[in-house]
């Protein structure tokens, strides 16, 4: 893979960070991806099931072209990409410079296990005497002090929780590779001074910390402490605040003046917490409240100790920074805590419930009551816990919880059906996304999930003290109570841990609740140029949105680096030329790792040698000690260089640990890395060791040896037949076509053109701007007219963009890399364009109003009409006394059963405008569910404060309109009064939602599929949200699904970034595992064409043969299985190789 001049830093390796990093890496940038956690994956490592398939599918995010640059295995397991350096347990500690030229410092926290040496054998875990609650399962299970942070990741390197660890040293004794560094000696080198006037406190602290292995001294007063500090080099001082004579704060000031690096922790009684907080302002790190729990004290001391131990900050030059630090969660046990979390074991968070359903979870995927392990029969989901709650300082919606609850309820229903009753208590069911409403309907009407509108206010025990009693108040004010086995709390979002520090460091402002504040009209730009947010950093998002925003942030980062002239020079990496071994017969160098001392005796190298030296394809067998270390690796390189081997088979431990190494070795010895394979031969030995001593042998054959032999033999069969020639590639026309000149299309055009590629922007109308010609401003008050003018100017003046106004697409064909599209302008003139990719931004229009007397009475308008009339003054709020708005007109029910996402916000915008202009105006909003996800919720609150009245209605009792005596009368049932109401309206505003404008002919020209509603069908709604199923075609804006202007801009940027992966190379290589056609055997039956899920195969009329587009083919092998003649073959998995592998598997 080529490397571009330029590097980026991505902070946070959850789904957003991974997407941003991959998008940048795929366009050739070097990326450093860091995460505070010891593993990647973020919250998604805990979530097994995703809406709407209720399965995973994260692997679909991996590169589709030039696949071999990245790992080709489950993404939840881990990630490898040639251009991405992943640094876990690492934090950003400093940033200097400006966009294009940042210098960042990264600080690695010690995990006490050497990742280079740990082979994940797990022997350490079997001897660890400590058990603590496992965060991974949200405390529902326990783990040891030495543990795998995520059970399914690779490299499966253990880490030590140094707070829980008692440093008994048992793990060190059993570790076969000597990987564990407990740092016991290091703790003795950490000097702590305890200052307290009470001897008993001093002594107990001294004992506690001494037992933790630290070097502790004590002083009885301030002056004595200062003396001690001067005499010896202390790292940390723990001081009481209230002491006779010199008090703690004075001591702190004096100590800090003399020893600025000293870490100070304050101890205080409740009464002086304020003083302690003051102390933090003058340099104390933290404070403890007396009397304190050693469990609270120890982490406070261990943390600064570990920071001190952190290897020196690594400095790095990067052109741009992407923040995707994810989100934190509200702690339902804190605060009012009347929902029983932390009190009753059967009250769990939504995340914990998700873990309960997981196969790697605490109950191995079975749904059991946490209190007694019995089956669960009745579950209640309580929404909005710590969200939409002004008392909890949370005047925002956490966006994802409604769908999360629906998904969890559906999962339960799909598994247990009638046996488990599921109830969701909610205020508004926010199904504001593509296909969300139908998903909810499926849960409600097909699976029988009960949706109850109401906010539960308390959870207690029921009469027999066994189950939970949940109380809530219905809309009519009645108190209700019901008994459940379990309650699942939809805990709301909070800023990710350390967001405040990170923002201070980056000089990026936060919003009122501590989330990163993005710039006006951008979802991803921050105030600081060159620093962007992707994922949930600026507010919780579902996967679809996180991925879109991450791609958009990657695009902005790429442009920042590009604009700075490429920025920082990359590491030297010339194009590696591999030896051509295609005409040689297989000659395998077999290397057997003797591992460390502890492992040597577990392998019978002589027996293995005897067995395999007979194989004609094995050229040499060598035993190398510690093949995972640099020395071992150099030895392997020497062996290859010395012999004539053209394949290398390394029998060692986990192959995943060697991915990077294998590539380095390949480059070093000039052998294509695909001809080097690592096979795990130690696992059988470890399994035997864990099972206890040596198992009885079956007759003459040592079972471990037999398994090792089979593993090697199978690997040999695969390796022998591996295709040695380089993978095919396609030529790319480095030019893009964008269809649609609305805000999304214009944004995408600029985002591509800014990278120096030519863009043709085709617009059907005779002007650019689309819906921004009538949209006046956003809910937040930003002018959309100014935005339209600014972006239009940018587009028309851009040297790389050619705008085709009044032009339509009349036809097209071709595949990724080369599309041929015909344009026809208003005069009928035809023009043909060749381009490598296409971005479709055909947008939406406001749906036509077909009810409530629109078109019959002048006082009935749509939201669009109101927007225009408020702007041009034809509607003047001052002249109105009563306005009624009806939401969801023709929306969220068949046939348009989707939420248009923007109408609620638009109604709030108009209602607030009218209230501002005329406080006496009565505004009534008749709604089904108010859809104000995220921080838009504040406007809902504001509207209610301004006196706008909201009346909820159900589809079974829709509002009725009557034009009796010339006026407009709206009738509805107010659920709070429980009575029908009649409202006389001067103006009736209908929120009709959006309908897509994608013409069928256009979709056909690009081979794009549309869903039942006419929106572009994404390749995958969560993992590839702006890609069409057809490679090389992307969509953005409302062509995909209804969304706001800001969100449309983000999709435009995201689609551009996805297109750039292709445009960026003249020749695009395929993956190694790719289909081919043996034309001499092919009967042109075309079954393979029908079977190819990617449309990569065509029957060429010119050549009369089947052709495979290698960039579209993903190597699934469907064609090979369906071909009746053996003419469709998959490189790397040919029939011969498969057959020999089966033979090898059954040889013993």
């Amino acid at each position: 893979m080529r490397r571009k001049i330029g590097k980026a830093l991505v902070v946070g390796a959850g789904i957003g960070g991974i997407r941003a990093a991959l998008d940048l890496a795929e366009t050739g940038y070097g990326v450093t991806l860091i995460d505070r956690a010891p593993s990647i994956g973020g919250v998604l490592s805990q979530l097994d099931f995703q809406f709407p398939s209720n399965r995973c599918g994260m692997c679909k995010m991996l590169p589709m072209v030039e696949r071999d640059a990245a790992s080709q295995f489950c993404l939840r397991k881990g990630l490898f990409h040639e251009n991405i350096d992943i640094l876990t347990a690492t934090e950003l500690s400093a940033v200097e410079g400006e966009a294009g030229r940042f210098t960042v410092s990264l600080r690695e926290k010690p995990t006490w296990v050497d990742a280079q040496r740990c082979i994940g054998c797990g022997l350490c875990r079997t001897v660890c005497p400590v058990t603590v609650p496992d965060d991974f399962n949200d405390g529902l299970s326990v783990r040891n002090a030495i543990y795998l942070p995520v059970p399914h990741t690779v490299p499966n390197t253990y880490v030590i929780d140094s707070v829980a660890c008692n440093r008994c040293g048992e793990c060190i004794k059993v570790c076969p590779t000597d990987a564990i560094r407990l740092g016991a000696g290091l703790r003795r080198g950490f000097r702590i001074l305890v200052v307290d006037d009470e001897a008993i406190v001093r002594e107990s602290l001294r004992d506690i910390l001494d037992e933790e292995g630290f070097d502790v001294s004590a002083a009885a007063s301030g002056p004595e402490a200062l003396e001690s500090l001067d005499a010896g080099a202390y790292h940390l001082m723990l001081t009481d605040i209230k002491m006779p004579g010199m008090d703690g704060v004075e001591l702190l000031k004096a100590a800090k003046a003399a020893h600025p690096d000293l870490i100070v922790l304050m101890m205080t009684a409740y009464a002086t917490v304020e003083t302690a907080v003051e102390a933090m302002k003058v340099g104390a790190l933290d404070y403890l409240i007396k009397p304190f729990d050693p469990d609270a004290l120890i982490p406070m001391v261990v943390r600064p100790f570990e920071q001190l131990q952190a290897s020196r900050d690594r400095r790095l030059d990067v052109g741009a920074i992407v923040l995707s630090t994810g989100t934190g969660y509200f702690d339902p046990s804190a605060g009012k805590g009347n929902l029983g979390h932390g009190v009753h074991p059967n009250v769990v968070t939504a995340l914990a419930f998700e873990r309960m359903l997981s196969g790697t979870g605490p109950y191995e995927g079975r749904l059991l009551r946490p209190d007694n392990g019995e089956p669960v029969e009745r579950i209640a989901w309580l929404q909005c816990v710590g969200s939409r709650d002004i008392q909890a300082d949370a005047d925002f919606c956490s966006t994802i919880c409604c769908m999360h609850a629906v998904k969890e309820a559906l999962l339960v229903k799909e598994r247990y059906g009638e046996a488990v009753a599921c109830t969701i208590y909610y205020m508004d069911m926010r199904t504001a996304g593509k296909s969300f409403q139908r998903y909810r309907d499926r849960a409600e009407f097909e699976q029988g999930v009960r949706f109850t509108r109401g906010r539960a206010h308390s959870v207690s025990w029921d009469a027999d003290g066994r189950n939970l009693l949940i109380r809530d108040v219905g809309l009519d004010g009645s108190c209700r109570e019901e008994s459940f086995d379990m309650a699942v709390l939809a805990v709301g979002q909070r800023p990710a841990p350390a967001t405040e520090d990170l923002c201070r460091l980056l000089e990026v402002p936060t919003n009122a609740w501590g989330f990163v504040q993005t710039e006006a009209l951008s979802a991803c730009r921050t105030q600081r140029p060159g620093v962007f947010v992707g994922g949930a950093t600026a507010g919780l998002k579902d996967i679809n949105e996180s991925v879109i925003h991450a791609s958009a942030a990657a695009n902005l980062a790429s442009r920042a680096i590009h604009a700075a002239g490429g920025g920082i020079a990359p590491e030297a990496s010339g194009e590696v030329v591999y030896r051509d071994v295609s005409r040689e017969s297989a000659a395998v160098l077999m290397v057997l790792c003797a591992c460390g001392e502890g492992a040597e005796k577990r392998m019978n190298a002589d027996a293995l040698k005897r067995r395999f030296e007979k194989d004609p394809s094995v050229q040499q067998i060598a035993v190398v000690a510690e093949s995972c270390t640099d020395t071992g690796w150099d030895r392997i390189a020497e062996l290859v260089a010395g012999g004539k081997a053209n394949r290398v088979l390394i029998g060692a431990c986990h192959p995943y640990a060697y991915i990077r190494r294998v590539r380095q070795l390949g480059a070093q010895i000039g052998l294509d890395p695909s001809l080097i394979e690592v096979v795990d031969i130690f696992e059988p030995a470890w399994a035997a060791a864990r099972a206890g001593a040596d198992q009885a042998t079956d007759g003459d054959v040592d079972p471990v040896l037999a398994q090792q032999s089979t593993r090697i033999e199978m690997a040999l069969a695969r390796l022998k037949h591996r295709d040695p020639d380089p993978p095919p590639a396609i030529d790319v026309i480095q030019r893009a076509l964008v269809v649609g000149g609305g805000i999304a299309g214009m944004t995408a055009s600029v985002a591509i053109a800014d990278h120096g590629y030519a863009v043709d922007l085709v617009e059907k109308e005779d002007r650019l701007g689309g819906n921004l010609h009538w949209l006046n401003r956003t809910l937040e008050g930003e002018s959309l007219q100014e935005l339209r003018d600014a972006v239009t100017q940018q587009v028309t003046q851009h040297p790389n963009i050619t705008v085709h106004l009044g032009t339509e697409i009349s036809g097209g064909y071709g595949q990724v890399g080369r599309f041929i599209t015909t344009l026809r302008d208003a005069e009928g003139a035809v023009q043909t364009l060749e381009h490598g990719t296409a971005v479709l931004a055909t947008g939406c229009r406001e749906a036509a109003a077909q009810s409530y007397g629109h078109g019959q009475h002048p006082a009935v308008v749509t939201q669009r009409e109101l927007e225009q009339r408020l702007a041009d003054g034809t509607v003047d709020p001052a002249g109105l006394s009563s306005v009624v708005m009806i939401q969801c007109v023709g929306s969220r029910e068949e046939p348009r059963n989707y939420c248009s996402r923007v109408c609620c916000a638009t109604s709030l915008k108009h209602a607030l405008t009218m209230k501002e202009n005329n406080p006496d105006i009565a505004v009534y909003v008749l709604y089904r569910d108010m859809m104000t996800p995220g921080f838009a919720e504040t406007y809902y609150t504001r509207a209610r404060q301004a006196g706008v009245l909201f009346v909820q209605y159900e589809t079974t009792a829709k509002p009725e309109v009557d034009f009796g005596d010339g006026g407009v009368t709206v009738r509805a049932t107010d659920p709070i009064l429980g009575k029908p109401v009649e409202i006389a309206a001067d103006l009736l505003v209908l929120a009709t939602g959006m309908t897509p404008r994608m013409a069928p002919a256009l979709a056909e020209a690009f081979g794009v599929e549309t869903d039942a509603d006419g929106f572009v069908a994404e390749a995958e709604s969560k993992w590839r949200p702006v890609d069409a199923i057809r490679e090389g075609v992307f969509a953005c804006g409302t062509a995909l699904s209804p969304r706001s202007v800001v969100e449309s801009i983000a999709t435009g940027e995201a689609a551009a970034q996805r297109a750039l992966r292709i445009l960026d190379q003249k020749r695009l290589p395929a993956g190694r595992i790719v289909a081919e056609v043996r034309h001499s055997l092919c009967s042109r039956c075309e079954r393979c064409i029908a079977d190819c899920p990617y449309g990569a195969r065509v029957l060429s009329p010119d050549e009369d043969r089947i052709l495979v587009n290698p960039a579209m083919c993903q190597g699934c092998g469907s064609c090979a299985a369906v071909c009746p003649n053996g003419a469709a073959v998959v490189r790397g998995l040919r029939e011969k190789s498969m057959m020999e592998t089966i033979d090898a598997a059954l040889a013993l």
Partner: protein
Amino acid sequence: MTDFEPTIIAFVCNWCTYTAADLAGTSRLAYPKNVRLIRVMCTGMIDPQYVIKALLEGADGVLVSGCHPGDCHYINGNFKARRRIKLLKEILPRFGFEPQRLRLTWIGASDGIQFAETMNKLAAQVRKLGPSQAKLKMVI
């Protein structure tokens, strides 16, 4: 035949079941030791002849396992496998094999436990059938 330890060939897809098998391994779950994993990119590429070959070469049981429906990395490969395996089960008796020696399952990447359970169940099922007679017949 209670102590008969069957040899099982498991054709697993690269994305889901292989990961689950790996997880079962790293989670130290017990499953029959004579399971031989053959990794393919997708169950949709498994040619019925591979299964027949494995049985003819003496495998006592064969597992084909991929991603759950709707979760296939390659969109729909697992559905193709389902069709093929159904037909294959129909014709296995003609080769002299009990259809119970072949199993098709969907095991997701995080279902390490399910993988181990599936292997244990299949092994138990095959144990009941006894060792494959294929090799013996071949000799005759």
